[in-house]
């Protein structure tokens, strides 16, 4: 970025809080790997050295929603699983984003049937839909870059008034 040279010359830089916050948010998007079926294999491949999601600051897959900014819903979501996905999404701290990875997640895909949710946008706010069955790792990286573009346009105060949703207890016997 030439930051070092600039700092050496002047000793300071001027910027805005919004720019710094957005830059740091987009450069360290920690994903929540919601790997439900076969798309998860491609998601794992995206994190491996060949495709290397670490280049985009997203190598830290956290298996707890409390530390995540981005939920990658990778796989077929059934009506029974939808409650679990939503519960995990609700536990993630704001600001948060969602990638609907693959045909099943985006639209039900080939599972046009009574038990599969025909698109997770029925119960989750989705930021990026990702085509493919399953999508190639490059495609997931592309989705991540689109999320980063989206984050870079946000301002720090955009999320300040968000209220936590009320968590409902699911009785699943």
């Amino acid at each position, binding site marked *: 970025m030439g930051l070092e040279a600039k700092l050496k010359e002047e000793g300071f830089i001027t910027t805005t809080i919004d720019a710094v916050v957005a830059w740091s948010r987009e450069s360290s998007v920690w994903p929540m790997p919601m790997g439900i079926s076969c798309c998860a294999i491609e998601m794992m491949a995206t994190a491996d050295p060949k495709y290397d999601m670490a280049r985009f600051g997203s190598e830290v897959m956290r298996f707890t929603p409390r530390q995540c900014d981005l939920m990658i819903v990778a796989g077929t979501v059934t009506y029974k699983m939808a409650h679990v996905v939503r519960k995990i999404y609700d536990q993630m701290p704001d600001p948060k984003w969602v990638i609907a990875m693959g045909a099943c997640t985006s639209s039900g895909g080939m599972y046009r*049937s*009574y*038990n599969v949710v025909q698109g997770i946008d029925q*119960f989750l706010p989705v930021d990026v839909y990702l085509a493919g069955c399953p999508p190639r790792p490059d495609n997931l990286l592309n989705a991540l870059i689109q999320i980063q573009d989206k984050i870079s346009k946000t301002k720090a105060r955009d999320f300040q008034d968000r209220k936590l949703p009320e968590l409902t207890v699911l009785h699943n016997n």
Partner: protein
Amino acid sequence: MNLKELIPQKLQEKFSHVKFEFLDYRGDLSVKFEKEHVVEICRFLKEDSDFQFKLCEDVTAIDWAKRKNRFTVVYHIFSLKHNFRLRLKADVDESDCTIDSVTPVWKTSNWLERETWDMYGIKFNNHPDLRRMYMPEDFQYHPLRKDFPLMGIPGSLPLPKKD
């Protein structure tokens, strides 16, 4: 003696009061009988030293939709000793949609019968834990029945609210 001849012979000998139907289709033997006798026949097939059908591979059902006996419960059993598969069938009508559970004979059939109950709504008498296998507990319908629409019944499976 060939097992395909021995099974009909011994079954008819042992259960003279039961009406059997035997069908040899593409090398697989099927035995059909009335549902009241399912447990005793299964126990005999498992415990008889000539047969030893010790493995229950699958319990499922067929929905014939318009036939008089609407459902047929099908058991696939396997004899490890003879490397022989046998199919058992029993008709169940919709008006009395129950059949005795074979869990006292094969413990494996516990989950298989739960699945059949979930998908077809056939009740298994004396089953130790007849809950749904796949669908949510409070679901009202049985999805593999022929009169269940492919896309389900709207509103029968609740989704979380989108805020």
